[in-house]
Structure formats: structure tokens, C-alpha cells
């Protein structure tokens, strides 16, 4: 087989060199965890990219598959003592494969187009909704139960004395998880913010495209979004989107994940929330924990109102990974099965109390986990916090 | 390396003998069944002792009580029963009451020098406390009953003598549950319906542990007759592991020279 020397030239030699092959990343990689094969590990993938780039190995179907099956959860990055910037290696490699073989991912591209453009998404959502009502949708399809009556935003009137915050509503999050937006507004208004919503004007943030390796489409999406001014805040309640927007507006300190913002007000929330009896198990989205380094914030916020239980898997990915569960369903489901085993272990362990909720701050995880059979209600942490507000009714916005 | 003329002589005798019986102080009776042939015994004496390294090298024929006398001065010990020689203890894996769980002997022998059946000298291990250089012949030699050679030198890890060592006993039915709650007692053993526990360590810790126990009384070390007898060694003489043992014997003593009667009892004549 002739070896093509022209691959992965965009991957920087310096990034590849930081990896010393020690293998400390292995257990933090969900695809290595379920396969036990070096091919599906961060160390393996780095090694493959390096060797293909150096012309020592040809880009065989196995190499392509190894790269395609990376969920890009970035669980390996915080685990790496050498500080390998894995995203700087895998992202250009994936993007290159997609740009070289455009036709290969045509279904995925079409799918992503549909769910990230507001008009087509609404039509698609309606179709799914009808199908759900007619019980024609397989239970396992990772779409939450939809309703004809989409809850509406009821925003407080503008008040110049209040700090303004823009809620980034996004695409799927808005069409399928509008309730989480409304809960977010409720909380923010209770904390004295004046909230605006980004709506269709901004549309999708392009995180799904970027994550899938479609850099061109992602760039198009990102162009529609205005860089937040230094005196205003953009708050995002989808971990995947907040991670992506922080990257788009690199250096901007005004893009915040909702958990980050709420955590700043933890003492106010201690006053505003009622203590409840239920126990919440946290599933940490990769883009929150590994990419943004937000972990204890969610736990401490939920602990104001709930008893909190945690998984013992170092924040291993659930397999959703943006569009990963569509493009690599076999691997995604294997990863999810493992996650469910971990969840079940906590639910059924003698030492923990009954688990009432599973909280995850990302729509991808929420919907993908909903597609599996878990005995607990799966919710966004914001919803749990909003439900626990003492003065929930007086703040308006909730139907 | 050389251990001097005594060992050189033993090597020569080993080389010219057709049958060899290895003996120590004959304190355990393990070597009472004798065959025809020469009787070889390892020399005795302390080769080197470095208290600060917690390590002692001795000829294998040195009695354990002599070793402990030497160690006493630096408040150290080797925690195995004071019968017979160190070579005998190693060859018969005599842990004493420290249960097999702690495996005191195999884990504390750091080096062994052995005269092989052909009279050559081989060594395994080293004079350091941690060592994974090469295959572990020491584990094989501990409990090998002289079937793989005459052990002439042993380097042992020593340990500081604990501030307090106290035996307690109980016949109460709750004894087992109570003892399993204790933090790492040195010895737990059952003998004639009584449970015996050896608690060692800081004086106050041992006192607290004793207070924590209910229905136990202080006692002396139980006098059990646990001297190792080959006939008591409840180990299989069949199956795949046994065939590996036979293969090892064949490699180490192809002429069936060493401790024939023991070898034959264990089905290890090849």
C-alpha cells in the first residue's frame, strides 16, 4: 500500500511531542473503557495521527475508525500529567478527514442541518411530536417527550437598575428543552437579573458541527452570534454550547455557563431555596467538567436543596457526545451501557439513599440517557433549583 | 562470590556424593528419616548485620535464637519461632503462628545462596529490601524441603521490636467477630477451642485494643506443636502443578541426589 504523506499536516508537532506514551489517560477514555483496545484510546489515537503524519503508517480504515470513534469528551486532558492538548490534535485531524471526504458524512450533515436551523428544526420537531402521539417513535429514540403547547417566555419588563443578562437559547435546547430556559429565567430573575433571550436571531452556536468535525458549517453558524459586550453577560445552560461559545469568543469573560453564574450567587441561593428531602445523583457533562473545569459548582449548588450522590467513574462520558450517538451508535451505546451500570450501582448500593433524580446540565446527555432505561427522573439541575425556590410563584415566568 | 573454605568444602562434597541428606539442628524432626548417603549441614555464623538497614546476612546453619540474640542489641528481631536454624525455617516455610496470610518468611527473605545438586553455587535476590531483578527463586526455595539444593546463606529483613507484645485469649462465641474488627493484629490463631490473638505496637494502642475486646483475657503465647512435618503438609501431589514441580526437580536435581526420602514421599523422584 502506498503511504500518503500529506495527512494531518495541520496537527502541530509540538502538541504530538508532549505525549510520552505513559498510558495514564487510558481509564479516562470512555471508548477504551468499553473496548479495552489501544486503537480506541487517546494514547493510541495520538500515536496513529503522529505516525500517519510522519508517513510511517497509512491511513487505513482502522485508523479512520479509531479517529471517528473518539467522542471528544476530553476526559483525557485533565488526566494527562504532561498537559497534552488533545483537542488540538484530534480536532484538526477529524476536520481534515471530513473536509477530504465530504460525501462520507452526508446523512450526518443533513441531520445536523435539520436540527440546527430553526425553521427545519421546528418542522422536524412537529413531525417527531406527531409520531410520538401516534406512538410511532421507538422508545429508545433520544428525543424527550414533546408537547404541542410549547411553554412561552414571560420576561420581566426591562429595568435599567438591574444587571442585564442574555440567555443564549440555541437550537435543540430551545425546541426540546424550553422548560429549562424558563427555569433558568426564573432563577436569574429571582437573583435580580434582567433577562433577555437570544432567540432565532442567533440560532445555533455550531457546537454540534464543530464537534462532528464540520468546521466550515460551524464557522457559518458562529458568524451570526454577536460577541457579548464587556458590560453584559451571555449565559448558557447547555454545557456543550457554553464550552463552544467560550471557545468562539476566546478571551471573553462574559460568556458564562449557568452553573458558573449561579455559583457566584451561592449565598443568595442559600437564602432563596428550600431544603428538600430528595436525593439527586449528578451525571457530569464532559463539556462542563473536562472542558470547562466546572464540577464542584454543580454539586455545591444542588447541595443547598438536596442530598447529593455522585458517580464513582471520574466523570466518564455517557456516550452522547453531540452527534456522536447518531454517527457511531454502536460505540455510543456501549459507552452508555457502562454509564448505566455505574448509575445502577449507585442506585442499588446499600449505603446510598433512594435516588430521586439524575441531574445533567447538557441536553445531549439528557436526551441520550433518556433513551436508556433508568429508574429515575432525568432532569437539568437548573430545573431542580428553580423548583426549589421559596418564592417561585411571585417571580413569574412559570406556568 | 565466595563464602570461604567451609562452603567450598560443602560444594566439593555435594559434587562427589550420589545421595545427600540435608540437616540442620534436627529440632523439628523433619530430617529424621534418613537415607544412605552423605549428611550435609550448612555452616553457622553471622556474616553481616546492619541495624540501620534492617537487614542481616547469616550462614544458613545459624540458629534463630542466636540471630535474635544478635538483633536484640539494636532492638530488632526476625519474627519467626526460635527453633532450629534459619536454613531449616526457610526450607520448611516455618512461619510459626504468624498465619500464612502474613507470609512472614517468603516476604522477608531477601537473598539466598544455595549449593545445587551438582555442587555449583547459585544465588537469588540481593542485599536490598526491594528487588525484582530476574525470576524469584527465593519464593521457590522457601518451603522446598531441601529438594532444590542446600541453602548455605540467607539474608533476612529484620524488624524493630514493637514497644509492646501482648497475647490475649477467649473462648467466647463473639471472639471471631470482635477480632475481625481489630486493626491488623499480628497473629490470630485458634487452638483447642480458644482464640488467641497477638497484639503488638504502641503501648497505648495495645491497651486501647484490649479494652475494646470483650471476654478476652491476657495470656502467654500458646504452646502449640506446629513444628513442620512433611506428613502434615497438606499439599497436592497430583495435577498440573505437580507436574511443574516434577519438572523443576528434574531441572534442579536431575540425578535425584537431594533428600531422596522426602522427594519420594512427595512424588518428586524423577
Amino acid at each position, binding site marked *: 500500500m502506498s503511504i500518503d504523506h500529506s495527512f494531518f499536516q495541520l496537527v502541530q508537532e509540538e502538541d504530538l511531542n508532549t505525549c510520552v506514551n505513559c498510558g495514564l489517560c487510558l481509564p479516562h477514555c470512555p471508548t477504551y473503557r468499553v473496548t479495552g483496545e489501544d486503537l480506541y484510546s487517546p494514547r493510541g489515537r495520538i500515536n496513529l495521527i503522529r505516525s500517519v503524519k510522519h508517513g510511517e503508517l497509512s491511513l487505513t480504515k482502522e485508523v479512520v*475508525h479509531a479517529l471517528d470513534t473518539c467522542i471528544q469528551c476530553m476526559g483525557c486532558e485533565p488526566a494527562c500529567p504532561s498537559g497534552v492538548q488533545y483537542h488540538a490534535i484530534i480536532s484538526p485531524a477529524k476536520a481534515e478527514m471530513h473536509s477530504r471526504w465530504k460525501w462520507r458524512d452526508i446523512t450526518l450533515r443533513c441531520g445536523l442541518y435539520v436540527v440546527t436551523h430553526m425553521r427545519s428544526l421546528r418542522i422536524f420537531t412537529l413531525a417527531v411530536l406527531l409520531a410520538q402521539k401516534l406512538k410511532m417513535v421507538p422508545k429508545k429514540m433520544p428525543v424527550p417527550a414533546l408537547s404541542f403547547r410549547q411553554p412561552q417566555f414571560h420576561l420581566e419588563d426591562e429595568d435599567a437598575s438591574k444587571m442585564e443578562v442574555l440567555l443564549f437559547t440555541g437550537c435543540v435546547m430551545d425546541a426540546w428543552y424550553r422548560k429549562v430556559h424558563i427555569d433558568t429565567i426564573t432563577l436569574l430573575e429571582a437573583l435580580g437579573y434582567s433577562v433577555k433571550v437570544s432567540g432565532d436571531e442567533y440560532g445555533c452556536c455550531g457546537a454540534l458541527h464543530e464537534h462532528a468535525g464540520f468546521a466550515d458549517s460551524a464557522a457559518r453558524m458562529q458568524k451570526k452570534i454577536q460577541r457579548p459586550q464587556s458590560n453584559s453577560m451571555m449565559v448558557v445552560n447547555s454545557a456543550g454550547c457554553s464550552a463552544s461559545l467560550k471557545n468562539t469568543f476566546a478571551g471573553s469573560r462574559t460568556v458564562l455557563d449557568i452553573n458558573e453564574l449561579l455559583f457566584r450567587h451561592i449565598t443568595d441561593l442559600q437564602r432563596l431555596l428550600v431544603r428538600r428531602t430528595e436525593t439527586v445523583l449528578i451525571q457530569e457533562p464532559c463539556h462542563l467538567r473536562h472542558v470547562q473545569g466546572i464540577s464542584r459548582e454543580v454539586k455545591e449548588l444542588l447541595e443547598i436543596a438536596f442530598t447529593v450522590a455522585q458517580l464513582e467513574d471520574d466523570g466518564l462520558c455517557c456516550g452522547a457526545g453531540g452527534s456522536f450517538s447518531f454517527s*457511531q451508535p*454502536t460505540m455510543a451505546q456501549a459507552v452508555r451501557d457502562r454509564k448505566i451500570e455505574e448509575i445502577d450501582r449507585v442506585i442499588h448500593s446499600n449505603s446510598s439513599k433512594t435516588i430521586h433524580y439524575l441531574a445533567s446540565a447538557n441536553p445531549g446527555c439528557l436526551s441520550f440517557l433518556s433513551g436508556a432505561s433508568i429508574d429515575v427522573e432525568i432532569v437539568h439541575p437548573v430545573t431542580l433549583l428553580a423548583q426549589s425556590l421559596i418564592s417561585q410563584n411571585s417571580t413569574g415566568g412559570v406556568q | 562470590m565466595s563464602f570461604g573454605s567451609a562452603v567450598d568444602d560443602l560444594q566439593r562434597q555435594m559434587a562427589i556424593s550420589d545421595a545427600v541428606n540435608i540437616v540442620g539442628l534436627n529440632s523439628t524432626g523433619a530430617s529424621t528419616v534418613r537415607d544412605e548417603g552423605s549428611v550435609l549441614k550448612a555452616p553457622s555464623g553471622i556474616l553481616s548485620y546492619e541495624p540501620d538497614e534492617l537487614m542481616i546476612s547469616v550462614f544458613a546453619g545459624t540458629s534463630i535464637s542466636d540471630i535474635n540474640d544478635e538483633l536484640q542489641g539494636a532492638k530488632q528481631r526476625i519474627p519467626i519461632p526460635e527453633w532450629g536454624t534459619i536454613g531449616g525455617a526457610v526450607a520448611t516455610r516455618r512461619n510459626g503462628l504468624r498465619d500464612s496470610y502474613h507470609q512472614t518468611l*517468603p516476604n522477608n527473605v531477601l537473598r539466598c545462596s544455595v549449593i545445587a545438586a551438582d555442587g555449583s553455587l547459585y544465588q537469588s535476590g540481593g542485599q536490598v529490601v526491594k528487588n525484582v531483578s530476574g*525470576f524469584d527463586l527465593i*519464593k521457590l526455595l522457601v518451603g522446598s524441603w531441601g529438594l532444590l539444593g542446600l541453602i548455605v546463606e540467607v539474608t533476612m529483613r529484620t524488624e524493630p521490636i514493637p514497644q509492646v507484645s501482648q497475647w490475649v485469649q477467649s473462648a467466647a462465641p463473639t471472639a471471631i467477630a470482635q477480632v475481625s474488627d481489630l486493626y*491488623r493484629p499480628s497473629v490470630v490463631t485458634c487452638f483447642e477451642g480458644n482464640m488467641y490473638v497477638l497484639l503488638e*505496637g504502641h503501648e497505648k494502642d495495645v491497651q486501647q485494643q484490649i479494652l475494646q475486646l470483650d471476654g478476652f483475657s491476657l495470656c502467654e503465647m500458646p504452646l502449640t506443636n506446629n513444628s513442620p512435618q512433611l506428613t502434615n503438609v497438606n499439599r497436592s501431589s497430583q495435577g498440573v502443578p505437580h507436574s511443574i514441580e516434577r519438572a523443576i526437580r528434574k531441572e534442579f536435581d536431575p540425578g535425584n541426589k537431594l533428600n531422596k526420602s522426602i522427594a519420594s514421599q512427595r512424588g518428586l523422584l524423577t
Partner: protein
Amino acid sequence: MNFGLTFEYSEEMSGVVHTNTAELFLVGQDASNMMGSPAGVCYPTTTAEVQEAVRWARAKGMTFIARGAGTGLAGGAIPTDGSLVICLTKMNNIRSIDVHKRTAWVEPGVLNADLSRRTARDGLHFAPDPSSQQSCTIGGNVANNSGGPHCLSEGVTSAHILALEVVLPSGDVCILDAESSLFDLRGAFIGSEGMFGIATAIEVRLVQNPPHISTMVVGFASVHEGAMAVSAIIAHGIIPSALEMMDAPITRAVEEYVHAGFPLDAAAMLIVEIDGLENSVLDGSRAVKDIVSRFGATSFQVAQSQGERALIWKGRKTAFGAIARIQPNYYLHDTVVPRKKLAEVLSQVSLIATEEHLQVMNVFHAGDGNLHPILMFDKRVDGVMDRVHRAGAEIVRVSLEAGGVLSGEHGIGLEKRDFMRWMFTENDLLFQQKLRSAFDPEGISNPHKVLPRGSGCSDMSSIPPGSWI
């Protein structure tokens, strides 16, 4: 698990033995700098499948090699001349845990840290804690008789393995335990670096978590004073549960990553941990404090919480990886010297590195005298490899001259097999070979490792490219 790929199947083991270049390329490597030449790789999930793979390799006239997570540093898992790699990572079930007897049966692919994590609720853990414990497999621990910081008081892997189920090179399966034979075949098998067969199930001892722990971080103005303090602590009759040293360059590299509050102004730091019952911990830590101050300690901190302790250990255990922040390549050595020789050998090591114009850092198990000098380099620099090889050999030589041994925990593998003669006589090696022959008369299980080339002892030899010797 087949993820929709079509592999190039061999006839008999259709779909079982993978032979594509990408996979072979990856399983040809471990955490050392060597590159092997495997002919195929398979991932058995049961003992019977391991047995089948071994028999298949035999029938084909192939050699075979067991592989765990590939975190070994001595090249023990590097497949030589066309071995079948039998990768055990899919055999990762904890078969049973007996909380009362404090034992567990695990499969070889179970990760070391996963077992302790699972038994934490019952107040138990698996004592061997190599620095790679989050990634390395228990099967690999058995093969290498792994150590770790806490082996100072707990003993190495072999002290914690009660029984093994093994597939022998003949293809037979048997249990090796205290009852199965007169000779301690279990003990002989542990540390045999995969050359006696493949462990397919392992009965481990679990030990009680200590009720009290005191973890101290002590800074010193010189490596020499730190090393003297180590000797003095042990000589005082204190056996800490762990006694580790890090020199200034590695402390700085690690601190940048973990932020554990290590003393950045110290030339060397010790991590001293004492555990056990309350009063022994109290008295022991007090004595340690006295001793280190006698040796001119410049700082003394005690971990105030479990979180602080965890951070200290994270810093210690991920130290090797943090080196890439300084140079892209490293060669991590592993020798043992008598404790009293620590200071002397460390200064010799530093001289050797200076002579070869290499940077060296030290992070090691001082309490055991187990040195881990790390030579750092960029292999793209011309001629650097020769210098690294020379320095490595010199470090081995000075360690042996000080009365030490070749390896404390990484094993011999390919890396040090040709140094074996520096430590052992031909006759010593012959008897090691005899033991191997009893388990593996044809020499088909992980050939070419441990025993040196060029004598009756070694397997017929071909050395993989990139190897050290």
C-alpha cells in the same frame, strides 16, 4: 466487540485475531521507548479463550505474549519476532469480593485502582499502589511483582496474591495456591514477566484501610540532607507506610500541574506517611519531625485533610508524566541501593548526567532505597540516544557497585536483560533459566525477556528497533 469493521481474519481464529497494521502498530508498544513486531492480537474474554489462543499459537509455531494496559517501562510487554499478543483488557470483571475473609477474585484486566475503589465502602483496599495504578492492570502487577510507595510497609504484590489461575504455555489451566503443590509455584510465577504463562484469574488479599494517617511534606536545603534523613528515620525503628523523595526540578514540574503546595524553594522534599493506630501515628510523626529537623529541614507541612493528602499523592504519582513539560522524551531508570548509600549514589547519578550533558530529575521510593533517576532529552537531537544509553548503563553500574540491584519494581524486560550478568553469575542465571524451562520448556511465552542474550540462558534473540540496549 466488533464495531462494524471488517478485520483481516486468519482462517482458524476467524474474527478473533486482528492483524491490521494500525492495531499491530499500537500493541507493539508500551510505555517504554521500544517498538515490537507482533503478528496478531486477540482479546479473549474468558479463561477458555485464553487457552484457545495459546493452543492456537502453539499449533501455528508462534510465540505469544500477554498484554495488560501497556504501562510497563522496561519493555516487558513488547512483542518480539511475530508473537501473538493476547491482550487481557477485556477480562476485567471483579469475580467476587469476600469482605469477611478480605479477599477478592479478579480477572487480570481489572485496573488496580478500580479494585480499591470498589472495596472502599468496606474499608478495604488492594495494597500495591504503583504510580500507574489508575491505568495498570492487576495482571500486569502480578507479572512484574509491582511495588509502589506504600510497599515500604505493606510489601510488594507477591505479598498480596493468594492464588492464581494460570494458562500454561502447554495450554493447560491450573490453580497455583498454597495447597496445589509443595513448592510455592504461586510465588515463583509472580514477577515472571509473562514468561511462565498467563494469569487468567487472581485471588488478592485486601487490607484494612488505616484508621489514622499522617502525611508530611518536608523540604530540605540539599538532596544529601534529605537522603540522610531517610536513613535516620528507618534507623530509628520507624517504618513509615511510605517515604518518598522528589528533587527540586521534578517538584517544580509537578507543582505546576497539581498545585499541591510543595516547597518550591527546597532542593529536595520528602513525603513521609505514617499510618496505623492513633498513638503509633502520633508518636511516629513526632519522631519524624524531630529527625528531619536534625537534618536541617527547611519546611514541614502536614496534610490537614483527605483532600490535601490526595493532592500530595496525585503530585507524586503523576510525576513521570509531568516531565513532558520540560523535555519531550525521558528515560526512567529503576535501581535499588542500600539506604545508607542513597546520598552517595544520587550525587554520582547527577555527575553522570552532567558528563553526558543530560538533564536528570529524581522522584523515588527513598524508604526502600529504590531510585528512579529520570534522564530527559529530545530524541530528535543528533546523537542524544547514545548519550542516554551510556548514562543509563553508568547509573546501573554505580548502583550495583554500591551493593544494589538492577530493578526494584519495573522489572528487567528487554531494557535490562543484558545487564543481568552485571548482577548474576552464569550459574545464577542458569538456575533462573531452569525455573523458566519447568514452566515453559519451549520458551514460547514472552520470549527474549529477562535472561541475557548470548548464553544458554536466553531465548534465540532478535532485538526490536528503538530498544535501549
